[in-house]
């Protein structure tokens, strides 16, 4: 459903993403990993239209979306979360999601429909759906969930999840990982997932792509990637064994 070719992004003289190429099948979960600063978030920013690529093409269901504006891409079915949560604090939790449900869905949406999709999304991630619940009551974990709920309320066909587990404690991490699987299975959403917590990521994803210095250095099934010496060197380090174990468990 997604084909990315020759994608590049420069900041000044610095190349953050260099000629990256990959594709996704419907219903797949792709894990995107790589050292800090390797360009993962930058790729997300380009896929979601927040940044304009310097070169390359991004085809969503055959349609070119590279360089389109973020809201248009969102309406076409790409939902994203931000690495650092960006809630709308002046709206309630429900309104946050409803806003996404109203503006982010394709076609004309009534208010009632928007609120319904908001409630569904919130239930799915396990946040309260009562109208009064304020964003201020959410902790770090709650904000991560809200990011997901906002993205889901737009009824995406492709979900870009950027470090959705960062800062979660262990029990919540497991729940969140299961939730992503659920989302894929029940809502038929394709997912690209960026995460540094290998123990969880490797269990959930179907395929892993590894970036380093903006270049793709490896791609494949989780256990293959976990065994790739180059990946071990630049990314996994001594966690490689644990990672491999998790990959096998998944």
């Amino acid at each position: 459903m997604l084909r990315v070719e020759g994608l590049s992004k420069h900041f000044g003289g610095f190349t953050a993403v260099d000629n990256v190429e990959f594709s996704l099948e419907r219903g797949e979960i792709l894990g995107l990993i790589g050292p800090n600063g390797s360009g993962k978030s930058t790729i997300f920013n380009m896929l979601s239209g927040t940044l304009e690529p310097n070169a390359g093409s991004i085809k969503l269901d055959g349609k070119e979306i590279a360089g389109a504006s973020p809201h248009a891409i969102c309406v076409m079915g790409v939902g994203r979360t931000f690495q650092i949560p960006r809630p709308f604090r002046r709206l309630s939790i429900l309104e946050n999601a409803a806003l996404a449900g109203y503006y982010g869905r394709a076609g004309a949406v009534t208010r009632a429909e928007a609120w319904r999709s908001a409630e569904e999304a919130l239930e799915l991630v396990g946040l309260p759906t009562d109208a009064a619940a304020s964003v201020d009551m959410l902790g770090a974990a709650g904000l991560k969930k809200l990011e997901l709920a906002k993205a889901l309320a737009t009824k995406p066909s492709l979900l870009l999840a950027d470090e959705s587990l960062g800062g979660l404690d262990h029990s919540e991490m497991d729940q969140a990982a299961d939730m992503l699987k659920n989302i894929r299975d029940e809502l038929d959403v394709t997912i690209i997932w960026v995460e540094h917590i290998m123990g969880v990521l490797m269990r959930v994803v179907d395929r892993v792509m590894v970036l380093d210095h903006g270049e793709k250095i490896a791609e494949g099934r989780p256990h293959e990637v976990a065994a790739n010496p180059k990946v071990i060197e630049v990314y996994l380090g001594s966690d490689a064994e644990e990672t491999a174990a998790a990959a096998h468990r998944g």
Partner: protein
Amino acid sequence: MLTLRNINAGYGDFQALFDVSLDVNAGEAVAVIGPNGAGKSTLMRVISGMIPATAGQIEMEGASVLDAPAHDIVGMGIAHAPENRRLFPRMTVEDNLRMGCFMPQFRDRFEERKDFVYDLFPRMLERRNQMAGTLSGGEQQMCAIGRALMSDPKILLMDEPSAGLAPVIVQQVFSLIERIRGEGLTVLIVEQNVRQVLRIVDRAYVLESGSLRLEGTSDELLQSPEIQKAFMGM
């Protein structure tokens, strides 16, 4: 070295810490672990003076921390690498480091400390003239720790230093913490990555809903089924 007695603190009407008492001895590494929202960051903020305590006492090497003006606490040898890095986004990496050395008594040693930090994080040397706001998450974490180290503190408070870092970097951070310890620095660290942090600290406290639940050496805690279940997913 650092002693907390019956600390209460919160935000406005909301109380986040209830009667927390803990000790960190010189040269020790101590972790505070606990679920989201337990009050771990709040504890760190109270120690470094970012928020006031409503009751209790804090002493650093016998001197009262709570009686000192908040901005003098760094001068007592307490450095804090805060949650979410909190760099100055529109300043270069080097200027951020410079800010870590702001207090007059530290300024002479700026060059020396800077070299120490660049040695620790060669990536920072490479990016020293980049605006901190455009660094990647991991780079920002390095910069934040580096900034805290600039004042050559006696005790370093680290709030989730591994959050959002790549596994190799997490390992580096942890081995770095060990190295820092090796240099005689005392460390108080808040972490979600319980398994790894317990490997490098001497002792740990478990904080839940603003109160201390458990305390023990890292070995004890690593063995504790309760901890294993709650924090390590076993």
